[in-house]
C-alpha cells in the first residue's frame, strides 16, 4: 500500500508489544452533579484495548458510550466525578496532573469528533490548526510541520493538499472536513484513536470513503481504535471486538462474530432484530417496547428489565453480573447461560 511509504515520513516508530493491553479501564464510573440530583452516566465499566485492534462501543443515545470516551481523556467539566482506573502506558490517566494529561492528549491518544464543523476552529486555516497540533508536542520548525501537514492531507485523500492546507474549514465539504480531522488526529502518530460517531453527520457514499480512510490509516499506523457508534452496520464492517452499552452499563462484550451471531444478551439480540435489513424484507420489525430508562431514576435491578421479553422476577432484585463465556465474550444477564444462541436474526 502506498500509504506505508508516506507514513514512514509521518511516523516515528512503534514499539508496543502485542500481548500487553494498550489501555486498561478498570471499574470506571462517571457521575454528573445536576440540580435534579446525581446522574450516573457510566457505571462500573471495565475493558481493554490491545495495540492495533478496533474496539467498537455501541449503544443508543444516553447509554454512556461518549461519556466513557470523554472520561478517559479527562475532557469532562468540573461537576463530574470519575472513579476507577484508566491505565495507559503504566500510568493511571485519572490521577495524572493536568500538564501531563495534556501531553498525552493529541499525542498518544487522539480523538475524532462527530461534527467536524464545531471541532475545527473557523478562524484558522486547516493547515495552521494541524501545524499547531504538531508543534505543541514536537520541537519542529513551522516549515517542517507544514510539509508534514501536506503529506498528512494527501494521506487522508484531500485532493490538492498544498492548496487545501491554506484554506479555512468553511471552504471544505463535510467529508473533506472529516478527513482534515482525521489528519489532525493522526499527526502525532497516536497509539490510540478515539472516533466518536465519526461518520454520523455524513452521507452514506461519503461515509464509505471516510471509513475507508480511517481503515487504511489505522492499518498503516498500527494504532488501536475505539469506534463509538450507534450504527451496527459500521460495527459489522470494521470492528474486531464489540461492547454493547445500555443505560450506563456494559451489557455484553465479545468478538464481532460473537456479538452478531452468538449473542447471549437479550438487549443485544433485540437491538439486532430491530434493524431493517437492506437485503431482505420482513413484514413487521421486532421493535423493543418502551423507552430507555431515565438515568436520574433508573429501574431496580437490570436496567433493561422493563423492556425485556425474557425478564424474570430475579431481574428486578439485583443488577446481573457479567457472565463470562470463554475468550472475551461476556454478558450481563441473569439468564445469559440459558439463551439459545442457535436462534436469532443472523443465526
Amino acid at each position, binding site marked *: 500500500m502506498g500509504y506505508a511509504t508516506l507514513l514512514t515520513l509521518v511516523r516515528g516508530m512503534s514499539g508496543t508489544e502485542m500481548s500487553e493491553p494498550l489501555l486498561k479501564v478498570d471499574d470506571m464510573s462517571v457521575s454528573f452533579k445536576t440540580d435534579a440530583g446525581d446522574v450516573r452516566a457510566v457505571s462500573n465499566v471495565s475493558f481493554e484495548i490491545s495495540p492495533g485492534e478496533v474496539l467498537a462501543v455501541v449503544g*443508543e*443515545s444516553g447509554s454512556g458510550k461518549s461519556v466513557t470516551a470523554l472520561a478517559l481523556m479527562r475532557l469532562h467539566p468540573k461537576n463530574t466525578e470519575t472513579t476507577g482506573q484508566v491505565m495507559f502506558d503504566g500510568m493511571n490517566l485519572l490521577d495524572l496532573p493536568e500538564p501531563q494529561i495534556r501531553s498525552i492528549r493529541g499525542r498518544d491518544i487522539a480523538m475524532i469528533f462527530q461534527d467536524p464543523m464545531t471541532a475545527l476552529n473557523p478562524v484558522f486555516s486547516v493547515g495552521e490548526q494541524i501545524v499547531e497540533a504538531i508543534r505543541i508536542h514536537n520541537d519542529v520548525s513551522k516549515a517542517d510541520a507544514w510539509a508534514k501537514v501536506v503529506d498528512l492531507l494527501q494521506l487522508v485523500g484531500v485532493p490538492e493538499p498544498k492548496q487545501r492546507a491554506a484554506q479555512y474549514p468553511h471552504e471544505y*465539504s*463535510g*467529508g*473533506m472536513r472529516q478527513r482534515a480531522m482525521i489528519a489532525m488526529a493522526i499527526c502525532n502518530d497516536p497509539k490510540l484513536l478515539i472516533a466518536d460517531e465519526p461518520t454520523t453527520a455524513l*452521507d*452514506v*457514499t*461519503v*461515509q*464509505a*470513503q471516510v*471509513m*475507508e480512510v480511517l*481503515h487504511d490509516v489505522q492499518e498503516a499506523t498500527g494504532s488501536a481504535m475505539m469506534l463509538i457508534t*450507534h*450504527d*451496527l*452496520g*459500521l*460495527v*459489522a*464492517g*470494521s470492528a474486531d471486538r464489540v461492547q454493547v452499552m445500555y443505560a450506563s452499563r456494559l451489557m455484553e462484550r465479545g468478538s*464481532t*462474530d460473537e456479538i*452478531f*451471531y452468538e449473542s447471549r444478551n437479550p438487549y443485544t439480540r*433485540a*437491538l*439486532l432484530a*430491530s*434493524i*431493517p*435489513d*437492506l*437485503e431482505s*424484507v*420482513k413484514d*413487521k*420489525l*421486532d*421493535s*423493543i*417496547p418502551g*423507552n*430507555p430508562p431515565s438515568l436520574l431514576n433508573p429501574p431496580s435491578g437490570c436496567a433493561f428489565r422493563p*423492556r425485556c421479553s425474557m425478564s424474570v422476577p430475579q431481574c428486578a432484585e439485583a443488577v446481573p453480573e457479567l457472565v463470562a463465556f470463554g475468550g472475551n465474550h461476556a454478558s450481563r444477564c441473569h439468564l445469559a447461560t440459558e439463551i439459545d444462541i442457535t436462534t436469532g436474526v*443472523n443465526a
Partner: protein
Amino acid sequence: MSPDAAADVTAYDSGALDDIRADEPLLKVRDLVKEFPIRAGVFRRQIGQVQAVTGVSFDLYPMETLGIVGESGCGKSTLGRSLLRLLEPTSGTVTFGTEDVTAASKHRLRELRSDLQMVFQDPYASLNPRLPIRDIVGEPMQIHGVPKKEARERVGDLLQRVGLLPEHGNRYPHEFSGGQRQRIGIARSLALRPKVIVLDEPVSALDVSIQAQVLNLLDEIQTEYELSFIFIAHDLSVVRHTSDRVAVMYLGRIVETANRQDLYESPAHPYSQSLLSSVPIADPRRERSRKRILLQGDVPSPANPPSGCRFHTRCPIVQERCKQEQPKLQQIAVGHQVACHFALQPGETLLERTEQLGRGAQVASS
C-alpha cells in the same frame, strides 16, 4: 379507492376523491420545479438560482408507499414540501384526484390540506412547546371547524391509536421523549383523516429500538386509515422496509424509479448501485464478502450543477455523451424507469461494467 369506500370516510372529507378509482393515481406530479433565488449585495439583488428540484414527475397510487431516497441536498425534502405547497413550486403541476393543487386558491388549498398532511423530521422543532398535546393534535380540527366536543373525543382516540394515553393530552411536548413526540406528530397528521401523508425523515432522529416502533405504527395506520405515503428518507434499509416503490434522487432529479424488489435487487442506474453498495449491513460475514464501490468526491453544488447527466462527475462508467446530453427517464421494464445513457442490465454490477471499460474503480472490501 372505490366510490363506496370513499362514502364511509367521515364528514371532513373535502370531496376531491369521490370520483377516483383504485387503479388511478391519487396524486400526479408532473415536471415539478422548485428554484430558490441566490441574492447578494446591499439590495439583495438576485444573482442566480438554485434548482433544488428539477422536472420531477411521478404518480402515487391509493394505499401505496412511495419511498424517495437520496443524499443531503438532493432535493427530496424540498420536493416533499413543494407537493403540499408549503414551499410554492416554481413550475409544474401536482394533481390530487382531479384537482390541480398548484392552481388552488388559498382558501381551497386549506381545504385540500385536510387530505394532504405532513410529518416532519425533527420531533423537537415541529411541536409548539407552549401548547399542550391536546391542542397540538386538536388544532387541525379546530381550523377545519370540527365541533369542540367531538374534537376532544377524537384527540383522545388518536392519542390512544398512536400508543399514548388520552391523559397525555394535558402534557407539554418537553415531557415526552423523541419517539413519543414523533407519535404525537403522527396523531396530528391523522386528525383530519387525510388520504396522503408526506413523511419527511420520520425516524432519522430516533434510536434504532424506537425507530422500529414508529415504523410498525406507520405500517398499522396505513392499513387502518387507507393512507398513501410519500416516505422521504436517506436510510435505504428503512426505505426498503416501508416502501412499495422507490424513487432515487440525485441533485434535484429522479434518476431511477422502480418497485422495491427491482430497485434493490437489480438497480440499473450507476448512482443507485453505488448508493446501495455504500450502506453498511449489520452482518459481519456478509460485510466481509462485499465489495464496495467508492464514489469519488462529494455531491456537486446545486447552484452550479454539472452539464449533461448531473452524476457524470462522480460516475465510474462516464462516457463523453454523458457530459453533453442529459439522459431522460426511460422505461427499461414494467414500472422501472432509469435516467442513464448506459444503464446497467439486470444482474450486471457496476464493478463488472467498470472493468469492462478497462477502468479502475476504487473498491473497498472491509
